[in-house]
Structures are given as structure tokens and as C-alpha cells.
């Protein structure tokens, strides 16, 4: 099959061998779940339970507070122990609902699937929002927002993201192998919501088994599977659309501006559960991997499970940890401790010792231009970074610094190991601050 791709990007070692062959295992319930009110892009949810309340699995415990916001659900049955700031993967202390697990894991009896007879766009969209579904690739953008294009933006194509271009991560890969039917069902529901016929699943060609599996499952449903070149960040929304359809999302715009909606494979599976069974998003598959972990695994984890508990399920660590990353190694966040919980956007938990990661001194730019070649958005990262360091945000803006998606290609490739992404973030913050002032 011919492999499509985009211009730019880098080739980090994929390191997926640790966990790619490990079937998804169900993670047991911890003693308590820490469920943050902010697990998505948009306004945090507002709690509707109080300390001491008994809750069912799947029960809404916090409501969406805006259009770009989603409700939060109890991930198992138990008692609300506390509502207070707790460590969050972002590194901050953020409000969370702590649930003492009763071990019975009883579903909320009021949750029911939606009969196919009632499948219309508005009802489906409303159900998807009520189930708290967000983009599970890591960006956690509320799915119902993506599914609500205004009338002047007709959608003609649904792209399903099965790329998983970040090294180490294999959660989506395992989902495609083990739950291909559910993903296809989710795609059909999404097509119904959007009223589109064309659906294309994009998968990197380093997962031939997933391509074969999805092609087989998709055959009867008029859904296309597109193999993509192995290159980071092939799974970034704009780069995926560019590769599959040769369309460029305008700067500052959304895929819906060019008639496209992109959803992750795990999101599609969650949509199927929400509509068929009425089950909200209370669990997800997380890859626990990295050279320091004793046994890498793909675990089906309840939202709110502390990372420390996840690590115990993998028999702990081989040697002293130097860095913990939530997400992938290119865009993930380093963690202060293992106290924070897994949330809806957690695709991976990666553990590294000192010798596993580069500790290189930062040098000066030798203008080699590798960052320019690597940048998938065709920016001049070195130039913008230099302006940012000097505080010259007008020039940084002129060089389109705010278009940067922080994919990390420039920093990965820089022979002087300059912290370009960090400088770019600084430039973006400076530009925002400047715009607010005027």
C-alpha cells in the first residue's frame, strides 16, 4: 500500500517493543481514586456531590460548566472521601474528588444505552457530551465540540487517528488489535452524528498487524484504512489531515474549517460504549513502559488511579528513577512524583533511569538549519527562540511563533541541544500577554 506523509518531522527510535505484544490487562481497583475536576481542555467541571455521598460507577459527580467542558464521573462505586486540591499530572495542586472504593464496582442503574431508533445527531451529540468523552490521543479536547460544526462549515470527511507516532506508546495499537469492531461501531456513530460518508483510518506502517486488523473490520462498512509513513509527528491532527487529504488547516483555524473532523481510535471506542451501553468515560488503556519498569504493560485503568498503583501492577522499577513522563517522550510532561492520578488524556506512563535519557549541555546555535528542516509547521525555530530570549515578541509574532504546536522536533534535532520548545512557549506566552495589554 502506498504510504502517505507530510513535509518535515523527525525519526525518534520507536521503542514500542517493550509493550507492543502485551495484550490489554485489566488493572485492579486501588483503595481510592483521585478524580480531578479538570481533565480536559476548557472550563473545569463543577462538583455536584458532597463528602460522605455514596456514588455508583458511572454516576456524574461534576457537571460541565460551559460549552467547551465535559462532566466528570465516578470511575467505580464507593464513598466520596474528600473534595480538595490534589496533585495533578500538570504538576499543580488542583481540585479533585477523592472516592473511597467499596470494591463492589456497581454501575449506576439509571445508565442505559440509546436505542438505534433514536439515533439522531442532536441526541447522539448530547449523549457523547454527557458521557464526558474527550480526545483520548492526549489533547483532551471535548469530542462533542468537534462534532458540532456550524452550518457554514460542512464536513465531508471523518479521519480516525490510529497513528500513535509517539515512541513507547502502544495503547491505541492494542485497542485496534483487540477492539477493532468497537472502534468501527464508534466510527459509524460518529459518521451518523456528522452526516458524512467518507471515513478514513490513518495508521503508521510500523503497525502492519493493526492495519490488517482494521482493514478486515472496516471492509463491510465502506471505511478506508490508510497506511502512513513512520515519522513523528504523523499523528498531529494537522499533519495527519495533510498526509491523508493534502489539505492544510489554516493557521489559527480548526480542521472543521476545511471540512474535516479527526477523532482518535480510542475515542471512537469510547463513543461506542457511551451510545450502545450508556457507559461514560470511566476507564482507558494506558501504556506503562520505559527502560526502568520491570514489566511493561498495556493496562485498562480506571480514571483517577494513582500512578504509583499502576507501577505496582508492573512489578515496580529495576533501578532508581530519574524521570517520570506522563504521555509520550516527545510531548509528555515530566512528573514531580507518582502521586498524581491517571486522567482521561493519559496515554502513557514512562519511567526512566539516569542513564536512559540524554543529559547534554546546552550550546550555542551554529545555524545548521536542522530545526528548520524538522519543523512540521515550516517555522524558523532557532530564529524565533533567539527573539524570545531577547524579549522581542513583536518579531517572534512576525515569525508566526504562535503557530507552534510544541511537537518537539526542533529540540530533538538540535545539535547544540538548545531548549527551543521551551523558548517557543515563552514566545507564545509573551505574545499572548502583549495582545492582552492592547
Amino acid at each position: 500500500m502506498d504510504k502517505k506523509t507530510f513535509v518535515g518531522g523527525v525519526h525518534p527510535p520507536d521503542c514500542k517493543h517493550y509493550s507492543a505484544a502485551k495484550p490489554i490487562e485489566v488493572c485492579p481497583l486501588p483503595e481510592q481514586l483521585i478524580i480531578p475536576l479538570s481533565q480536559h481542555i476548557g472550563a473545569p467541571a463543577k462538583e455536584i456531590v458532597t463528602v460522605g455521598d455514596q456514588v455508583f460507577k458511572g454516576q456524574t459527580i461534576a457537571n460541565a460548566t460551559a460549552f467547551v467542558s465535559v462532566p466528570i464521573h465516578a470511575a467505580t462505586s464507593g464513598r466520596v472521601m474528600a473534595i480538595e486540591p490534589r496533585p495533578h499530572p500538570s504538576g499543580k495542586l488542583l481540585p479533585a474528588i477523592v472516592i473511597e472504593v467499596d470494591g463492589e464496582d456497581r454501575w449506576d442503574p439509571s445508565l442505559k444505552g440509546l436505542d438505534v431508533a433514536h439515533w439522531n445527531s442532536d441526541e447522539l451529540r448530547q449523549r457523547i457530551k454527557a458521557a464526558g468523552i474527550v480526545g483520548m490521543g492526549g489533547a483532551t479536547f471535548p469530542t462533542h465540540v468537534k462534532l458540532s460544526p456550524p452550518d457554514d462549515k460542512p464536513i465531508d470527511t471523518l479521519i480516525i487517528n490510529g497513528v500513535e507516532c509517539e515512541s513507547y506508546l502502544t495503547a491505541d495499537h492494542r485497542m485496534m488489535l483487540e477492539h477493532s469492531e468497537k472502534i468501527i461501531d464508534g466510527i459509524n456513530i460518529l459518521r451518523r452524528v456528522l452526516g458524512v460518508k467518507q471515513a478514513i483510518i490513518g495508521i503508521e506502517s510500523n503497525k502492519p498487524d493493526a492495519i490488517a486488523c482494521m482493514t478486515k473490520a472496516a471492509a463491510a462498512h465502506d471505511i478506508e484504512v490508510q497506511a502512513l509513513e513512520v515519522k513523528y509527528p504523523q499523528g498531529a491532527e494537522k499533519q495527519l489531515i495533510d498526509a491523508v487529504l493534502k489539505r492544510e488547516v489554516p493557521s489559527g483555524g480548526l480542521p472543521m474549517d476545511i471540512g474535516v473532523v479527526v477523532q482518535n481510535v480510542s475515542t471512537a471506542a469510547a463513543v461506542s460504549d457511551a451510545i450502545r451501553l450508556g457507559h461514560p468515560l470511566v476507564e482507558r488503556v494506558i501504556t506503562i513502559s520505559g527502560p526502568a519498569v520491570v514489566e511493561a504493560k498495556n493496562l485498562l485503568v480506571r480514571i483517577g488511579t494513582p500512578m504509583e498503583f499502576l507501577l505496582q501492577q508492573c512489578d515496580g522499577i529495576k533501578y532508581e528513577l530519574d524521570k517520570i513522563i506522563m504521555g509520550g517522550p516527545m510531548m509528555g510532561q515530566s512528573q514531580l512524583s507518582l502521586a498524581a492520578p491517571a486522567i482521561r488524556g493519559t496515554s502513557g506512563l514512562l519511567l526512566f533511569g539516569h542513564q536512559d535519557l540524554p543529559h547534554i549541555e546546552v550550546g550555542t546555535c551554529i545555524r545548521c538549519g536542522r530545526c528548520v528542516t524538522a519543523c512540521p509547521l515550516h517555522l524558523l525555530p532557532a530564529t524565533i527562540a533567539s527573539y524570545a530570549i531577547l524579549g522581542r515578541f513583536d518579531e517572534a509574532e512576525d515569525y508566526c511563533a504562535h503557530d507552534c504546536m510544541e511537537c518537539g522536533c526542533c529540540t530533538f534535532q538540535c545539535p547544540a541541544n538548545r531548549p527551543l520548545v521551551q523558548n517557543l512557549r515563552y514566545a507564545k506566552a509573551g505574545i499572548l500577554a502583549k495582545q492582552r495589554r492592547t
Partner: protein
Amino acid sequence: MAPQLYMSSSPHIHSGESTNAIMRSVIYALLPTCAVSVYYFGLDALLVLLLCVAGCLAAEALCCLLAQQPVSIGDGSAALTGILLALNLPASSPWWLALFGALIAVTIGKQVFGGLGHNLFNPALVARVVLLISFPVQMTSWTAPNPIGSGVDAIAAATPLGEMQTAVMLNGQLPPSAHSGFGDYFIGNMAGSLGEVSALAILLGAAYLFKKKVITWEIPVSYLGSVIAFGGIMWLIDSQLYPDPLFHLLTGGLLLGVFFMATDMVTTPITRNGMLIFGVGCGVITVLIRLFGGYPEGVSFAILLMNGATPLIDRYTRPKVFGRILHKT
């Protein structure tokens, strides 16, 4: 549980490429050329090489100490400048010429701008041009190649380009050496500075740099292409007055300049279109100087002039940003 965790901004992995490794690769790529120069010019060439490298390292260390900065000779860039400078000098250069050149290259060429990465002009070429203007006699005293073991003393000789200029000036037409002997030019059997002589050795080094992805095709192709095109047009106009494009390619410092000086990352554009413009500019200026200028050779002037134009070129060749219709300039 680890008591101390390392917190940092993403990305958390790195390609492993380093500035030192790039400098090392370029030095390795120059070794064949150094070896050929020592073969043809003997211990004289070796002495020039050693003096230039030692001089550059010493000057770099001195500058760092004076500026109270960490001594940066370990990054390999000073040693590389030394080798490139030596390859731009005649084998008969006196010791003081080599050392003075090294001092100029590192101080005026690089450190006054703030060291590695900040210089506007190629340091080795800055030094070459300063020496050429200040000491024209020593800088143009060429000797004929005198391979090790031939048992003859070095004799003075003109470079093919110098011969051409003299003949065109005196007789109004090209000398015989502009029509034949290309095989000798290719392997390096001609008079010239250390690094000018062997096209073969330079191409070997260039192949290594391409393989290591240290240099990209844009500047070499556009530079060589424009020399062939412009030189070729002139040759078609009057082949008695203007030499064959192949003569342009194989003589003088062109190949050394194309693959090792015009591709210097610090002093050339970072965008692809910028590199193409840079290469074409170098090619046109080189041929202009060779055919119509006061000096027989124009590669160093061409590259330095285009070095000066690099910030301007970068400004006007910004790539189209993804998702934008037009880019602002």
C-alpha cells in the same frame, strides 16, 4: 521511590547529534585533502597545517581567557578553522604568515563577534583575504607539486588560474594549460594552495559529509551549477578568451570552497531557498572575478561577499508557514 526526579520541558529524548560531532565529521572529511597536500608538497605542507591548527587553538584559548569564558577549544571549531586556513595557504608560506593568519581567523574572524555561531564571515576566509591583501608576495609564491620521494627541490610555478590570467592579459588568449591537463588537475598534480590541488580528495571528503548528513545538496549544487552555467555561456561566446567550464571546476579553490567553506553552517542561510540564492550568488561572483577581476581567483571573495548578504537573504526567504497562504516578509 526516587528521592529526586528530573523535571524538564518536553521533548525528553534527543537525536544524539552534537556540534562537536559535526565539527569532527568535517575534520575527518578534510583528512584526504590534507594527506594529498602533504604528498605533493612534503613537510612544508605538514608544517603549515600544524602551525595553523596550533595557532588557532592557542588564539581561541587566549580569547576565552581574556573574555573570562570557559575555554572552548574542545568543540573542534578552532581546529577546523586552522585546517581550512592551512588549506588556503601556499606550501611555501613562512611560519609567521601561518601563525598571523591563525590569529586573524580566530580573533577578527570569530571571537570579536562572540565566538562559535555568532560570526558573520567565514573565519578562515577572512584570514586568507587579510593575508592576500597584506602579503601578496608570500601568498602567491606557489611551488610545483613535488611528490615525496621524487628527490627534486621544490621549484616555483604558477597556478593554472594565474597562468590563464597572465596569458589573457599578455597575449589576449588562453594559454595551452587551459585546454589540457585536466587529468592532472583532477588528482591534484598542479601548483596551488594546499587544499586547492586535488579534486579527487575533496570529492571523497564531500561524499563523507553527504553520507553523514552534515551538508545538504542545496549550496553545492547551486554553486557548481551556476559556475558551470555562467562559465559555460562565456566559453560558448569566446572559447579563445574564456576557459572550458570543466577548467573552472577543477582549478583554484572552487571545490574546496563549494564543499567546505560555502557550506559552513554559521555563515550561510538557514532556509532552503536562501541556500540556493547563496550558492548562485557565489557562483556568479566567482566566475566574474576569475574572468574580469584583478585577482586570478575569486572563490574566497565570492563566499565572503555572500556571507555578508546572508542575514538579508534569510530575511527574504522565510518558508511558507503551514496553514498560511502568504508569509509576511
